[in-house]
């Protein structure tokens, strides 16, 4: 261990040393050590760091979230609110570990792999290795490094060239903690050329746990991934999730993230458009009330020419909540003909609610079409009056307007059944249900 140890990291370092060492490949043990050293050197971020200047990390720093033990048994009906209708390949992680009794992976076509990360490490280490990259041991992201050091499980979805999954892959992350505990999952989605999948991840749970999920997504040429995420964590939970996606030539990554849960949450998406004419869309909505804080951070890096980015995020922030959007699009010198558009619109519903938004463009090629926009405002008084003048009570009129505000982001989900699924969760939030 180096002497570069930042304050606050010590309990996590001790927990790392104290953990039961399982039989693991040598490369993995080495990597865990290196990642831990990286975390120790970086420490918890502070507000002086640009990427964290709007985030209040006190809920995370006020307690020590030691890695969670095996979760308690869970009745299957507890998962009902997040289950998708219709047949899926379902994999459930409880307290960060694969729960076979709740999962139903079902028959997979030839050339498809879906299993827990632990099992993948044992049976297909060639695939599991792709769940990591140099960011874990050399990057500037302390929580990703901590995740690489401490992760227990996760999932790996891998498709060979040309394989298409008909059913969606459904991952439910269910957090549990009697005392503060951290759940570090490490996952990978690896799509071969021209393969196709839909992945739906739901995050939920109970207790004061900290989800620290990292997923690495690698999309081969012309492959397509539809990635839908619902962050509906328990009211006492902290949720950090990072996606690191790399897109090959003409690959498509389309993600939608609905954030309604957790007291403190942050979702990071790093998308690297590596192959020409790749396309990515990052859409979503964050709906916050109480004193919740949620950050949506995206960074799309146009490395290759001719790529397209579309981003639309809607924020609805009430009570004393705080919504943050950090959107960055970079176009590298060789990425000519890049086409990027980003829009973040926010509704502030109460005098003590706050929104910070920072859409950012960094353009180093000239033949590009790039734009962004951001707005913050309250409900349109004229529209509210119009609805009320037709007899609709004020509360209902407000709900209709909020729903109307969010709906165009929701419409970015093309699949009708999926859209309805997310619309139900939106409706639940609008009806004031809190978990």
């Amino acid at each position: 261990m180096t002497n570069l140890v930042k304050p606050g990291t010590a309990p996590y370092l001790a927990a790392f040393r104290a953990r039961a060492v399982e039989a693991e490949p040598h490369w993995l043990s080495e990597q865990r050590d290196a990642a831990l050293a990286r975390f120790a050197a970086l420490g918890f971020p502070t507000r002086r760091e640009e990427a964290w200047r709007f985030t209040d990390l006190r809920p995370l720093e006020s307690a020590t979230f030691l890695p969670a033990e095996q979760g308690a048994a869970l009745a299957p009906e507890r998962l009902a609110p997040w289950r998708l209708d219709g047949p899926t390949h379902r994999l459930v992680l409880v307290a960060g570990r694969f729960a076979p009794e709740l999962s139903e992976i079902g028959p997979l076509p030839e050339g498809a792999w879906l299993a827990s990360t632990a099992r993948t490490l044992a049976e297909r280490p060639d695939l599991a290795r792709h769940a990591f990259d140099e960011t874990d041991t050399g990057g500037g992201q302390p929580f990703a490094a901590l995740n690489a050091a401490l992760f227990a499980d996760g999932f790996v979805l891998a498709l060979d060239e040309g394989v298409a999954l008909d059913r969606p892959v459904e991952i439910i992350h269910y957090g549990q903690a009697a005392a503060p505990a951290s759940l570090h999952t490490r996952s990978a989605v690896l799509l071969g050329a021209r393969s196709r999948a839909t992945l739906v991840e739901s995050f939920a749970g109970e207790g004061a746990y900290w989800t620290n999920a990292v997923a690495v997504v690698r999309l081969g040429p012309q492959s397509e991934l539809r990635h839908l995420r619902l962050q509906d964590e328990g009211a006492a939970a902290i949720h950090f999730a990072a996606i690191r996606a790399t897109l090959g030539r003409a690959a498509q990554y389309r993600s939608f993230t609905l954030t309604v849960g957790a007291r403190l949450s942050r979702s990071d998406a790093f998308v690297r458009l590596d192959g020409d004419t790749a396309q990515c869309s990052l859409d979503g909505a964050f709906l916050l009330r109480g004193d919740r804080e949620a950050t949506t951070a995206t960074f799309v890096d146009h490395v290759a020419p001719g790529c397209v980015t579309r981003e639309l995020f809607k924020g609805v922030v009430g009570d004393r909540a705080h919504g943050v959007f950090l959107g960055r699009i970079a176009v590298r010198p060789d990425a000519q003909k890049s086409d990027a558009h980003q829009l973040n619109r926010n509704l502030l519903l109460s005098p003590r609610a706050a929104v910070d938004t920072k859409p950012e463009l960094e353009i180093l090629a000239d033949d590009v079409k790039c734009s962004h926009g951001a707005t913050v405002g309250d409900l349109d008084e004229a529209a509210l009056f119009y609805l009320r003048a037709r007899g609709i009570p004020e509360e209902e009129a407000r709900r209709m307007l909020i729903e109307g505000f969010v709906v165009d982001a929701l419409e970015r989900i093309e699949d009708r059944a999926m859209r309805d699924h997310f619309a139900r969760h939106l409706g639940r939030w609008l009806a004031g249900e809190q978990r």
Partner: protein
Amino acid sequence: MLEIRNLHAQIAEGRKILKGIDLAVGAGEVHAIMGPNGSGKSTLAGVLAGRPGYVVSEGSILYEGRDLTPLTPDERARAGIFLAFQYPVEIPGVNNMYFLRAALNAVRRERGEAELDAGQFLKSVRAKLKLLEIEDDLLKRGVNVGFSGGEKKRNEIFQMAMLEPKLALLDETDSGLDIDALRLVAGGINKLRSPERAIVLITHYQRLLDYVEPDRIHVLSDGRFVMSGDKSLAAELEKHGYATFGTAA
């Protein structure tokens, strides 16, 4: 049905707009309120519908015998007051059908009627769409979004037909309409005339009155009615303009 006595109203920031209005409208009657720009016509409509930003400083408004002023805009609407907006508001993201059904069911609940299910609602909508020659696909869009000026006005009358108010206030519903659209809108209004319903037409020009014949006409100038009479007053105004009343048209 509607009885206004010595009504004074101002905008919240302080400017007085209505300076003593008296008006009684009975069931089955059609009244027209005319007057130049800035005379207070739209303010009167706004005050009656409860538009935020106006303060009633003096006088009273009785609707079916009860004081209207403490009621919220939606309470007034559910009590049967309908305002056709001069500038119907665009509400992106809120579907027209969804909106209308929410409004209709709110009104029906108030009246103690059963809510309409989707099938019944659709049937009722179809019939009334025809009346105003409104295309089906307009209903699939957001409220008033992407509507032409004429379509917006027709949509207002269509909503009125759906909601079946007791008192309809039509604020400059004729403005911005070409002759065909004007006939259509006027036809819609005439169909909705009934012994149980009172209608107040607010207009700058008398041309709407060629199609919808009012029982009474009132001329508003600088916040007061300066003249009232039967429909012949409209022709009078056509000839001489508002200048006769000391205000520029």
